[in-house]
């Protein structure tokens, strides 16, 4: 049995974790924006970085789904 044939593609847990964390952090940034700005004009780190994490998570999920589709 090769890794690709095993039950779990590692991209799924990575993607799901980052999608969940990214969504939660971005949502928190949206409903509770920080008062003080950070260096370089960064105003809402939660919202911005949460969104980046969410995108990364979705990219990983897409990679896992695509790999699974190619196998079947």
């Amino acid at each position, binding site marked *: 049995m090769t890794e690709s044939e095993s039950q779990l593609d*590692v991209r799924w847990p990575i993607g799901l974790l980052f999608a969940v964390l990214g969504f939660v*952090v971005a949502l928190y940034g949206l409903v509770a924006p920080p008062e003080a700005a950070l260096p370089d004009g960064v105003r809402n780190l939660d919202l911005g970085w949460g969104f980046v994490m969410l995108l*990364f998570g979705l990219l990983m999920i897409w990679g896992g789904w695509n790999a699974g589709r190619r196998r079947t």
Partner: protein
Amino acid sequence: MHLRWIDYFIIAVYCVFVLGVGFMLKRSMRTSLDFFLSGRRIAAWVTGLAFISANLGALELMGMAASGAQYGMLTSHFYWVGAIPAMIFIGLFMMPFYYGSRARSVPEYLRLRFDEKTRGFNALTFAVMTVLASGINLYAMALVFRLMLGWSIHATILLSAVVVLVYTFLGGLTSSIYNEVLQFFLIVFGVMPLAYLSVAEAGGWQGLVARLPAGFTHTWENLGNQSANAMGVGWFSLVAGLGFVLSFGYWCTDFLVVQRAMAARDMVAAQKTPLIAALPKMFIPFLIIVPGMAAWAILPRANFLVNGTVDYNLALPLLLARYYPSGMLGVGITALLASFMSGMAGNVTAFNTVWTYDIYHAYIRPGAPDAHYLAMGRIATVGGVLISIATAYLALQFHNIMDYLQLIFSFVNAPLFATFLLGMFWKRATPNGAFFGLVGGTAAAAGHWLATQSRWMTYESQMAANFSRAIWAWSACFLLTILVSLVTQPRPEAELAGLVYGLTEKPSHAHLPWLRRPAALALLAAVLVLVLNWVYR
């Protein structure tokens, strides 16, 4: 630093996911090979990221940021000189023997190449040190979280140990590797904004250079004279001690990292494992060391004081507290937690394999059915975690146990690389030569340590003494192995096929496009690391 419900929620989500990975993989663990070596079926990019993540424990995360604050860019030598060349070497030259011999562990390779006593010596010292290191890692984590967040030491030790135990018990090495990859991304995403924000506040790279002491942003400029740099090391001791002996000793022979490559799906994937790892590894200084430097540049000195003395280990926690709002703070703390857990899980999985294959199977119960060794692997996982907890409490009582452990590590890893170098590339090296060389090299390290303790030998810094001790231990092992080998009987050449250079068919990569060959990756890593050394010289 105070966490809110959102931060605790993020930590809880992370714990649920790592446990979930263990549960999902449980049904794939049918044989001992599945449990200990992931059935040798993992893709190269996964084993590659696990290869660096197993080493990216929080001691490294906090310690390298602290070194950045204390020594500046000189700390990058631990990556650009002290890791990448060794990772290229093991990928290109040593992996064909490790993987090609079908050895299931580093000590087992020593048995195949030399004899039982050399394997026994290495297996025993490795098992003891690994499980102790795991406990020290656990202790350090509990200490950090108590200082940062006021968490109870007992609760932190028990909770983290239980999480690591559950997912390694269920999913074995695969679970550890999968979680290491997950943890690698968490660490990158958890720390990256700190690097950007801290350098931005310092006024960009030029602003950072202007705020820091002269020479703080150079790696080679002040190495001509030991007293001219903060580390107190000269270029020779750095290149020979760190860049050659210690680095090659760790990256090329320590089963904790080599095990990740052994789990790869084929020879090419095994060779690519350390080479793929080398690419992100060489950029980690920008994520960890540079923020440490920036913390020193922008924060008042008073922030680093603990009981009147400067504690550089505060660099990373101070930045977390300064920049991260609730939410991102949870991600940052989870990244630290993840790095602690990946370090511990790496140690536990290496321990259960060496215990089961190289001690239990070899000396206690040979010839049992495979299911028995699978069960023993799970028992060893529980045992390893329990000993780790005990060691964590031991470290709690005796703080200098951490220093002694580091010392013992330097005793064992440095000479071991000489044994492997001669074993893999000199067919005349004999079993007795290897054994007495290894013991002699370890004794030389101990002798050097006694000489420095009694002030018979003195160095500019503790680090310079460590590098020098490694050179002594390696040289003693190298010379003794050669001398004893010349007067003792070598093994017949027919028995060394697949184990020694010159008697082993070189793996052919002719079927692969040039860009997908291990040599192309090695070339890319070598060029990039040379460029980095040049740019930050």
